[in-house]
């Protein structure tokens, strides 16, 4: 545990020391600020659901990029191998790398916090919905990252991870629309598919009405993915 804390601290510090991280963050902050301004101007309402939605969409494409080279047989994977010789289990290692990447998502989400504060000051948004949507967004990002890390642990090629993970996340997003696609004939099946989509659970949080199943999903899926990534990367 002590080693895990030391390593996680080091990895986060290392991530934030990279100019490339700050360049990417600046671009994303700029895009989100633009969307926020645009939505505000068009709707004239103090709500942020569109900004949350766009952040979720961006996260879907960002998660595969962040995890594509985690376990590939170069650079970082050699560091991963070295860390294993120190007696740190692959599960703790996977969690440390997961938290390093999640930290970047938190930095992106930070801009939403600023927007929320701005709205609270100038408008009358529902603070409960803002908090709920923020938690949902973080849960969704954790799910995406977990899935991508598991795929990264299975594949040697970084590009295969990128393509595979993006396709899978897009597929999971589309599952949300399963009831509409399948129609009334397979309503139950459509609902089952919809429940398998992380986006469905995010929408519940976004609407300020999270269920216990949504909280469980966001806690369970990343944990399962990391556990599996830990097992796979041991081989």
């Amino acid at each position: 545990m002590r080693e895990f804390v030391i390593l996680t601290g080091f990895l986060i510090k290392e991530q934030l020391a990279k100019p490339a991280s700050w360049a990417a963050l600046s671009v994303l902050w700029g895009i989100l600020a633009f969307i926020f301004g645009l939505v505000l101007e068009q709707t004239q309402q103090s709500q942020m659901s569109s900004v949350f939605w766009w952040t979720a969409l961006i996260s879907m494409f960002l998660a595969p990029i962040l995890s594509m080279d985690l376990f590939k047989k170069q650079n970082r994977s050699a560091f991963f191998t070295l860390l294993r010789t120190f007696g740190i289990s692959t599960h703790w290692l996977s969690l440390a790398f997961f938290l390093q990447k999640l930290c970047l998502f938190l930095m992106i989400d930070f801009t939403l916090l600023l927007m929320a504060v701005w709205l609270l000051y100038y408008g009358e948004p529902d603070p409960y919905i803002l908090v709920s949507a923020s938690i949902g967004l973080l849960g969704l990002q954790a799910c995406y990252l977990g899935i991508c890390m598991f795929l990264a642990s299975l594949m040697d090629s970084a590009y295969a991870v990128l393509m595979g993970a993006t396709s899978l996340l897009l597929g999971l997003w589309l599952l949300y629309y399963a009831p509409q696609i399948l129609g009334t004939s397979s309503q139950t099946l459509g609902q089952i598919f919809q429940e398998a989509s992380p986006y469905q659970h995010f929408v519940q949080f976004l609407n300020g009405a999270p269920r216990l199943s949504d909280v469980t999903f966001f806690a369970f899926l990343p944990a399962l993915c990391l556990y599996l990534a830990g097992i796979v990367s041991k081989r």
Partner: protein
Amino acid sequence: MALVLENISKNFATVDALQDVSLTLPHNSITLLLGPNGAGKTTLQKIVAGLIYPDSGQISFNGQELNTKTGVFWKLGYVSDEETWPGGHTTVKEFLILVARLKRCPTIDSEIEAIVNRLNLASVLKRRIDTLSLGFKQRVQLAQALIGDPEVLLLDEPGNGLDPKQFQELEEILLLEKSKRIILISTHRIRDCEKIADRVAILNQGRLSQVIQKEDWQRTIEKNHLKIALESSDLILTDFLDKKTIQYIRHRDWIQVILPKPESASEILSLLNQNGLIPRLWELGHINSLEDWFFTSLGKESA
């Protein structure tokens, strides 16, 4: 004090990476692990490092069995053939501090200072590892492995990319370090490592074909020798050699006779003929270096 590997086998899908490899690595010694590509050198090192679990076999250190399924050998330093630092903007000092903390060193500063001085890394301590020359990068790798004063040091192709001078410096460091630990080096640079090795283990197609002590190869170098592989028992031959006090080295399925004079070869072969022993294979040769040793051994294995 020794690290003992017993009957280690490892299978990857349809490939037998290692088959029944037994090897004893004594303390205060450098063992070279030689073999062609795909012979299983890296697999064996990774098994010792706890990175890969063997399908069967046992590893013990100082008579104490290590759990190859769950644990890694704690007092171990590992130098991979890949770049094992985190990349990005990490400096040498940051990396070494991280390793020292992860290895739970009680006195981080003094330990790092001692290793940095030993490996002449003081001038690059605050530099980013990515910007260093290959020689310095290799020293950084070695420095991280030496942190925690490991009893076993594993080096996988430590000479990769080093020029002769850099390699010589690395050799000098390893010679100094060997007094305190067991060192296992897998390499292709046989000529370069010949000077520092105390023994050589040759892996071929996942099998340990030979383990040669330094004295053995040193007494054969620059001498004629006769390699004989017999179909049946070689007792008559070894008795004869013992009587004549002719030196020989018994290998797994052949005997290497170090000829005191070139004409001894015909004497030995006629003795075999007289006793109705027809050699499956015999070959007269001259060994100039450990590299010759290696190639002759591989050739004999293939034959």
